[in-house]
């Protein structure tokens, strides 16, 4: 009997994230949250998923040139896999620093670019893996373990 946390989560749905679509910003993370809400996950879990999904989605919109978010579920785990074919993150350590941002002036005017995206994702997930290299896109795998 595998412990609940090690149960391989089921694939549920793949969402498309459109590039530079600020008007639709956050729609995917809302859809992800509503899906999990319908299944019946707790409010606490939903809050963390919403933050991770939103920040990851915005990164794909602003920097990744569009991509996708896939949702995997098991009773004890929510896994978000967020991918894009964008320019990649040249220095991941730098990107994980709070306050560091490559947002354009236009983005900052909209309220983005606080440099808290990746740190927020890290803070709200239990396991985080980021695969990226310049010119080869970025893949982020975030897992939220349910207690």
């Amino acid at each position: 009997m595998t412990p609940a946390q090690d149960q391989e989560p089921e694939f549920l749905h793949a969402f498309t994230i459109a590039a530079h679509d600020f008007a639709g910003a956050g729609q995917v993370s809302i859809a992800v949250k509503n899906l999990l809400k319908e299944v019946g996950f707790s409010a606490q879990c939903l809050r963390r998923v919403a933050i991770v999904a939103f920040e990851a989605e915005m990164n794909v919109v602003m920097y990744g040139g569009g991509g996708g978010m896939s949702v995997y579920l098991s009773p004890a785990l929510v896994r978000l896999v967020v991918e894009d074919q964008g320019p990649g993150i040249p220095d991941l350590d730098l990107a994980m620093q709070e306050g560091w941002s490559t947002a354009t002036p236009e983005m900052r005017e909209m309220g983005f670019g606080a440099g808290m995206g990746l740190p927020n994702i890290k803070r709200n997930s239990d396991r985080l893996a980021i695969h990226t290299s310049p010119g080869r896109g970025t893949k982020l795998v975030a897992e939220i373990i349910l207690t």
Partner: protein
Amino acid sequence: MGQWIWLGTFATMVGGGGHPVWIDPDKCYGCVLCLRACSMKAIRIHRGVAHILPERCVQCGDCFRVCPHGAIRCHTTPLAEVARYKHAVAAASPTLFSQFGYKVTPNQVLLALRRLGFDQVVDMGWLCEMNSAAMEEHLLRHPELRPGISPSCPAVVRLIANRYPSLLKNILPVLPPRVFAAKVIKERMAQRLGWPPEEVAVFHIAPCAAKMAGPQDPVVMDQPHVDGVISFSEIYGPLLGALQGLEEKTTLQKCSGAGIAWAMSGGQAAAVNVEHTLDVAGFQEVVNILEMLEAGRLGDLRFLEAHVCPDGCLGGPLVVENRYRAKSVTLRQIRRYGVLSRINRQRVRKMMDERLFDWEGGITPRPLPPLDPDPRQAILKMKAIQALTALLPGGECGICGAPDCHTFASDVILGQAREQDCPFMKNRARALRAREEPSMTTVREIAEQLGLEVAAGGAGLDRAVAGGYASDLLSDVMANAKAGSLWLTIQAHQNVVAVAVLKELAAVVLVGGRRPAEDTAAKAEAEGVPILVSDQGAFELAGRLHDLGI
């Protein structure tokens, strides 16, 4: 159709089912308008009649607004109810002041109410000002509350209890004005005047479906002390009559523009003096803001005023006046009476310390149940819902009786609807079955349908036919004909049988009246290869075979 129901002191006439917004099946056409209008997806159409799922309904009244057949009703306490009490008190929403044009003042409205059988009339605008102060005070005492949400719109409270339970803690625990008014009237005014409690009834007057509570209302938020809610549409006619020839000898109005402004969305936000207030009106807009709130994207907000009705209460489903004209009247009244409230803030603080503004019950969360109590099963059900949704056309046509394809898929997986309810799925099933069992044509059937004589090889008549080939060159047939084909040719010699066997052809059809040679017929018998004969040429025969679908 309706029946009198007693619920403690709350005597109301409620229609079928007990839910305060209800659909009259005799008038309902089963069109999709209310189905689509409902933001909570609380309506289903079954056997051509719409019905409301009470556990999903927040009583916003949007369905009531769009029904073209008058089949949807909002219940109201009938005005006649007032006469049953010796001490009936009117506590009308200040929105009422906006309903009678520029010339009628709030004071006149209050005086006219008194002529309708109410023993006392309370200026709720004044109480709304006190409420603004109490909410502001609560926010000042609780700086960690970011934001506090006004509880004035019961539909919003139900929406939060149903879909955003994580935000329940943000609802300001300050009694909404109508409940506060009723409480003060019963606990203070009635006692002061020496009224026996059983003779006292407080009637709120509002343009609001959400404030109507029915006996089967899953109680999300108590509305204690309020004995009835009379809609604007119910009271308007009599009130117009009462305004005629009114003598203005008394001043009942105490409120300023600060209270009058509660009629509009933004009126509360303007009166609650904290940094960063936000007002939002309209169901979908409220949902958008609550989503942002739940996602933590409105962190600096201190006070949220939300109304499901467009432009606030003056946009309610039971208003009489056009909402923009009502807004114009409200603005004029605000300018006339000024925005400075004359309430005594010290007194409000004292009342708060005396717990007069405190909620007596709490708010009961009423979330929709998870797909399954077992999380494993819930996930599998969600997968099944996703899979079914992917098969559906996504047209959101409503023919199945559900508002959209995803909801229909959920209903099916949860056993509340059948897949065949969707006309697309019904046809799809039929098409799938046809694809899996293609009809098989045999040589015998072709011979029968085209009237071809069987000259030899009758044993092979049940062979399946899968195409045709017309050629008189054997090497061409050897190179190009496909197995199972009908071979149309003028060649009658015995080698055609050999070719037919080698290429596993279904049958040989001799065209243009040719007959098989004797040895050909014998070989065909031996090999069981049918030889059919036709008087027609290859061209015509091929055409007829094509028409049969070969």
